[in-house]
């Protein structure tokens, strides 16, 4: 039971299964901006074989009462099939993909490759003065890698935002009928 006097903020990773129809993403984003909720990241793509269902993963934060509201507000949108609070429901995996461009010469290039190796980032593009690294992981790992690259020549970062899924056999379904 959310307690309104509880002002502790928590992060929540919420998975939302929606009808893949025009305007559905605008509805979700409009809900967050209109009601003043935070979006730390948001990803979306179709996930069923017919392309009719999309899965949106939202990372947000707020008090317990606000997060309860976010879930209830999402759930009442007409094209929403299911809302699942992965943070609350138990162990889950969170992954993000990042493309990171580092520009530099000489020792910096060597150092960049050494750090990439330690972080299991792959080189997906190289010139004599630049690398593009691809890495997956949780947000902290990518943040740490970017922080290390900054003095070496970090030039540009593109990140997907989090995708997440529960561990084990439990499933929120991909087809919305469950």
């Amino acid at each position, binding site marked *: *039971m*959310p*307690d*309104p006097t509880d002002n502790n903020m928590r992060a929540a990773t919420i998975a939302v299964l*929606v*009808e893949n129809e*025009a*305007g559905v993403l*605008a*509805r979700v984003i*409009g809900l967050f901006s*209109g009601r003043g909720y935070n979006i730390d990241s948001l990803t979306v793509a179709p996930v069923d074989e017919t392309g*009719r269902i999309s899965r949106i993963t939202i990372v947000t934060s707020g008090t317990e*009462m606000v997060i*309860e*509201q976010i879930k*209830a*507000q999402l*759930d*009442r*949108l*007409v*094209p*929403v*099939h299911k809302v699942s609070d992965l943070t609350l429901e138990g162990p889950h995996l969170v992954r993000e993909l990042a493309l990171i461009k580092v520009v530099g010469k000489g020792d910096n290039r060597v150092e960049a490759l050494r750090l990439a190796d330690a972080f299991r980032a792959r080189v997906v593009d190289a010139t004599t003065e630049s690398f593009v690294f691809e890495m997956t992981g949780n947000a902290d790992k990518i943040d740490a890698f970017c922080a290390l690259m900054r003095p070496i020549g970090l030039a540009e970062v593109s990140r997907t935002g989090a995708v997440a899924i529960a561990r084990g056999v439990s499933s929120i379904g991909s087809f*919305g009928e469950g």
Partner: protein
Amino acid sequence: MSATSQHADATPLTMSGAEVVLRALKEQGVEVIFGYPGGAVLPIYDAIFQQNAIRHILVRHEQAAVHAAEGYARSTGKVGVVLVTSGPGATNAVTGLVDALMDSIPVVCLTGQVPTHLIGNDAFQEADTTGITRPATKHNYLVKKSGDLARVVHEAFHVARSGRPGPVVIDLPKDILINKAPYTEAPPPEQPHRSYRPQTEPDMAQIRKAVALLKAAKKPVVYAGGGVINAGPEASALLTQFVRMTGFPCTNTLMGLGAYPSSDPQFIGMLGMHGTYEANLVMHGCDVMLNIGARFDDRVTGKLTHFSPGSKKIHADIDPSSINKNVKVDVPIVGDAGRVLAALIAAWKDDPAPPDREALAAWWRQIDAWRAKDCLHYVQSGSIIKPQHAVKRLYEITRELGRETFVTTEVGQHQMWAAQYFGFEKPNRWMTSGGLGTMGYGLPAAMGVQIAHPDALVIDIAGEASILMNIQEMGTLAQYRLPVKVFILNNEYMGMVRQWQELLHGGRYSESYSAALPDFVKLAESFHAVGMRATSADDLDRVIREMIAIDKPVIADICVDQKENCFPMIPSGAAHNEMILGPGQEGGVAGVTDEGKVLV
């Protein structure tokens, strides 16, 4: 249900999109459309011209079309239907849509749109209607394929009327209306929607928990709102049955007036900012609160941290997002108000625990002591008409005449006086803009009510400022011979603004004087209606009786005390027990803090 209705492709298509729309409306039981034509919706107007099943009411402004549909919906329980053109037609309708959204009124609004190949080109009378109305509706659709047309219309009605009702927009590009389209019938009611399935049946375990709390209550209250009205007249009957069997006091929100008979001794009046002394003190002092179909609105709760501090709260609502939004509750119940009440009645009978009759009797003695304060008392002396007296006489005379009476209002002081002094015995008789507070609501809403109830007495209790916001609808009244009575409490001020300026802003009446008012008698006459005026208390009854007797639209200009304020009042930022009472009555409030001034 398939999204593209492919099975219909096998037969040759004979109907235009516009004809498909009309047939779907007819299948949905639509009898009346409120609308205004324009280029993009000409195909629908052409189809309307060629049939007789559905009547079209031509309004004078699209905002009024939506309010008329709201009045129609609220007085009948049916879905109200609106038809407007693209661009300005749609944008003018937006205020009405938000009004319907805030008050949970089922409305389907058809908007014209430029043809699909021009969408996004800044074409003439193009607006991004689905974009603009997304936060103004429960749901909206842009139909881009003829095959989707019939399905979307049926679905729109289902979404508008089910769950927590609300407005739905269907944006219709002109080519979709002209091209041939397949017709599909509405899916059977037992076939669930793919993703939208509102919960109507309450969880019985929660019902039993609620009953256990209520049985043990020493100082209970039932707080019922618009959700009970929306659940149909049966829900109001069940509310009455439950309140009477328990012996509990019952208060209604502004939206819920009529859900419980106002003349019943267990009714303690409306609660909230301008609610009764007894209702607000009961809310403040109760130990168990049963909220059915209300949403702990800020006009009801006052200062949240001081709201009903000692009570266990049970909240039944069809919208899970209304529960635990403002106020933390102990027993949440998701479900339709009628089903919840039926379940509560059954569980109350099944539960062997006896209610605490002795404690309840003591609670009623306390309530009667609060009632004895007579917080709605006013003094009508001399010839200046007190606005409260005008509403009270209007109520008493309509009761005495015994005609079926419906009341709408605009927004402001007159609205609160109407809520305080006009009693309602039945649901669906009271139409007011509660959530959005839309000045200009009452006249078009009354129009919609009169269309639905041609023989009833329909009165718009208005203020002289609000009425001017949709005064053009006098033309609609004349055209369709709708004998709506516009009862203006004319104090020559935007009264509620003036009252707040007096109480909160040092009496600096910035821009709240209604200067250069029209002569409402002549204005009525110019619109083919009857105008009359009361300037003295001796005239009041005569004007009211004449107004009611005339079988034509009437504007009655009731010139009332210009400085009268609306009390009781919980100032913004204050708690229920910090109410201001009227002059000559005790009741404590310090001042309004800056924190309170921030609130509206």
